[in-house]
């Protein structure tokens, strides 16, 4: 046992985590879902995933950048076992307490049903031993896996991911395949994977992981280097077209609906990314511009809107709404020109709420309908038909179109003179000003551009749902957009897309369900945990700004090339390498 204190601490953390998930009812709730017939239940996967993970970490030992961890499956299994036993001990103490004292009055989830699940149905004295034993085994399994060779670990990882993916996203597979005989082979009637299909999926994933390891990188390089008119290029374009046609022909209603929700947040994230990621202005009231877009379209197109009722077509209303959003950007931007950092965040937070409360106020109710909202917002007219949220497989193309526009605007703006002025302002506002950048102009431009992008999302949202209320625009939405940008990677366009997909698509948005419907009630908890984890381990986001990482990577190569050419620097000064 190399580092007993570390292992013990990990075990305690795991025990507390397991107890906590049980205490909030997560295990009990998740256990209603069967992942693999007959006995792999989602709750147990979450519960035992913790000791497995901890076993892995304890086998690796304390993170040490100077030396590579020793991969020894026996030592790993031993240290994993100890960590797991500790975790089980802590958890069983917790279960014992819950069993002894009745706390359902304060903690409704700490009830006998939970004890039943935690003791695997054996009841208290024996079940606790079983619990300790099972977590110990899980921990040593984790440690054992750590000791395996790279290819085996990769195989296990891939197999686990694919089996869990197929099991968790049963709804998606259902929605795509839509052929019952095939589905019956894969899934049991209750939605769980059948044992043999799980084995087949796992085996195939394992095999593929060995087969294609490292090949994807080569393929990407090949595509990038290919000539403009070569076969590989055309193949890539063709693949792009096929992917674009997927929503129409292959994906079903549920998946398309979900993708539309994701796309809304990609749009909002891209817009906020301009304000926060590029210009460095922390805006916590961003939802206000979303509301301007949505309410603008609602009032201008709906026949049921109040005093202002022009009943324009969506396409006519859109430019007006964009102009309104730009105006709103100026209105919010101007008073906060002198504010920075925290103060800016607080004031914009206030602005966001002001917009929502104004919409609810008696004064504006005749126009915006107050708590009643605006109803009967027509869809988007398109060659004689009208497309709204009823046809998600068509509507998604509008959202994709505007996402593409927003991404293009972001991409072009970032690399331009305007983008440079934002970057300079983000880095050091005073110096940017002294270098000849009008920070007033740059800030307002960022607010206005961000507001217009948000108004796209609002306009699409109104046309999709057909009826809007103020509660779609509360503070939580602003916060979640910001979390999407942070988790994805500030300043990175693909990062925002990934962030939106992970948070909105998988976990679920503020008002919509994600792929994992079970997570719905724990969504905010998981958001919080994810945010803390990201800030500690990967503050640059899941997919950080590609430009930056490429630059840092190329640097070494270019330096070598420069030296090869005999470049000299006049004298032998020492460079700072921070």
């Amino acid at each position, binding site marked *: 046992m190399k580092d007993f204190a570390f292992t013990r601490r990990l075990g305690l953390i795991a025990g507390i985590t397991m107890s906590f998930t049980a205490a909030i009812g997560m295990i009990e709730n998740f256990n209603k879902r069967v992942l693999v017939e007959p006995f792999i239940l989602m709750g147990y996967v979450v519960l035992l995933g913790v000791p497995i993970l901890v076993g892995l970490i304890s086998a690796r030992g304390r993170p040490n950048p100077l030396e590579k961890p020793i991969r020894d499956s026996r030592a790993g299994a031993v240290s994993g076992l100890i960590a797991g036993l500790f975790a089980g001990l802590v958890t069983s103490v917790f279960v014992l307490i819950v069993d002894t004292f009745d706390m359902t009055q304060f903690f409704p989830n700490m009830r006998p049903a939970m004890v039943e699940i935690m003791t695997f149905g054996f009841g208290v004295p024996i079940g606790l031993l079983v619990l300790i034993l099972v977590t110990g085994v899980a921990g040593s399994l984790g440690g054992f896996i750590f000791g395996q060779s790279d290819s085996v670990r990769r195989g296990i990882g891939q197999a686990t991911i694919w089996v869990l993916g197929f099991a968790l996203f049963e709804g998606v597979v259902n929605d795509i395949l839509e052929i019952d005989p095939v589905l019956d082979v894969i899934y049991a009637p209750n939605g769980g994977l059948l044992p043999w299909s799980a084995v087949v999926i796992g085996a195939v994933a394992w095999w593929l992981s060995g087969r294609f390891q490292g090949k994807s990188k080569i393929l990407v390089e090949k595509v990038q280097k290919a000539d403009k008119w070569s076969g590989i290029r055309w193949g890539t374009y063709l693949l792009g077209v096929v992917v674009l046609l997927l929503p129409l022909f292959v994906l079903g209603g549920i998946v398309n609906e979900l993708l539309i929700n994701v796309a809304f947040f990609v749009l909002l994230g891209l817009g906020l990314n301009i304000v926060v990621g590029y210009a460095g202005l922390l805006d916590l009231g961003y939802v206000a511009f979303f509301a301007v877009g949505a309410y603008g379209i609602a009032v201008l197109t709906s026949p049921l809107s109040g005093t202002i009722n022009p009943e324009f077509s969506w396409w006519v209303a859109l430019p007006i709404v964009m102009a309104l959003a730009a105006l709103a950007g100026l209105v919010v931007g101007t008073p906060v020109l002198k504010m920075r950092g925290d103060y800016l965040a607080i004031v914009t937070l206030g602005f966001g709420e002001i917009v929502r409360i104004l919409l609810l106020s008696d004064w504006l109710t005749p126009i915006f309908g107050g708590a009643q909202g605006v109803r009967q917002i027509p869809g988007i007219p398109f060659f004689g038909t009208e497309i709204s949220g009823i046809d998600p497989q068509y509507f998604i193309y509008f959202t994709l179109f505007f996402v593409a526009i927003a991404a*293009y*605007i972001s991409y*072009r*703006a970032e*690399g*331009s*003179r*305007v*983008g*440079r*002025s934002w*970057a*300079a302002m983000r*880095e*050091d506002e*005073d*110096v*940017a*000003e*002294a*270098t*000849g*950048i*009008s*920070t*007033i102009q740059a800030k307002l*431009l960022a607010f206005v*551009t961000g507001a217009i992008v948000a108004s796209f999302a609002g306009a699409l949202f109104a046309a999709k749902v057909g009826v809007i209320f103020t509660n779609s625009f509360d503070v939580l939405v602003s916060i979640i957009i910001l979390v999407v940008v942070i988790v994805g990677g500030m300043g990175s366009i693909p990062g925002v897309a990934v962030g939106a997909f992970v948070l909105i698509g998988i976990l679920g948005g503020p008002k919509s369900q994600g792929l994992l419907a079970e997570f719905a009630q724990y969504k905010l908890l998981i958001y919080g945990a994810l945010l803390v984890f990201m800030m500690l381990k990967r503050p640059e986001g899941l997919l950080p700004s590609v430009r*930056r990482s490429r*630059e*840092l990577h*190329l*640097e070494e190569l*270019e*330096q070598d*090339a*420069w030296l090869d050419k005999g*470049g*000299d*620097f*006049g*004298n032998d*000064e*020492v*460079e*700072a*390498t*921070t």
Partner: protein
Amino acid sequence: MPLLDIVGLKKAFGGVQALGGVDFHIDDGEIVSVIGPNGAGKTSFFNVISGLYPSDEGDIIFDGDNLAHHLPNEITRRGIARTFQNVRLFPNLTVLENVMVGQHCRTRAGMLGAILQTKKQRAEEKMTEEKAKEILSFFGTRLAGYRFDQPAFALSYANRRRLEIARAMATEPRLLLLDEPTAGMNPKETIELTEQIGKLRDERGLTVIVISHEMKVVEDVSDRVVVLDHGVKIAEGHYDYVAANEDVIEAYLGRPAEKPDDE
């Protein structure tokens, strides 16, 4: 008519009179050093000229216009550029980008141009980049080649100072304010930069005001020296005259003990 003519410039921070009515002038093509003990108000003097702090009183006549109470970016656009005592680059931008940012006030392309990729925008972008490279070549190979794409934070201290000067040059100024340009450099680098300050005038036609604590630099570089102490100009003239001036020696070294104290 002098390029910059400052009359009665005053600036106070609370009870501290950082500048107590400074008169100053510099002609086109001159290099003037501003020296003085710590806390004499040299950097405040620069901060007020460049608009970072608004002045309390006094006129800053640059090229015939009074620039007092203009925004810093406006002042930079009129042709006064500066560097900072504690090098303030944009650390995460590349070397090239830092200099390209400097040209912001001399270029025009806006948001629409960037989105539509107009011919004009692309031409301007290309010109900005070429110009940035040309400006960086002022420092020979030190900031060239692979360094173009290196983030500014990866540079050595001396190179950061050079890059800051390059960024200031990129704003196409007529008057350059250098705040301790040689601080933290080794003797060899100091000599090199001293020569380059001369070149800024001779080759690029700039007028330069230098704040420096290194008397060798001041002696080599300046046509005229202005000494500040407690926010007031106490001496002005050629280096040899100033170096021998009793008030200046007193300001730096303190009053001789036998003189009566006026407290």
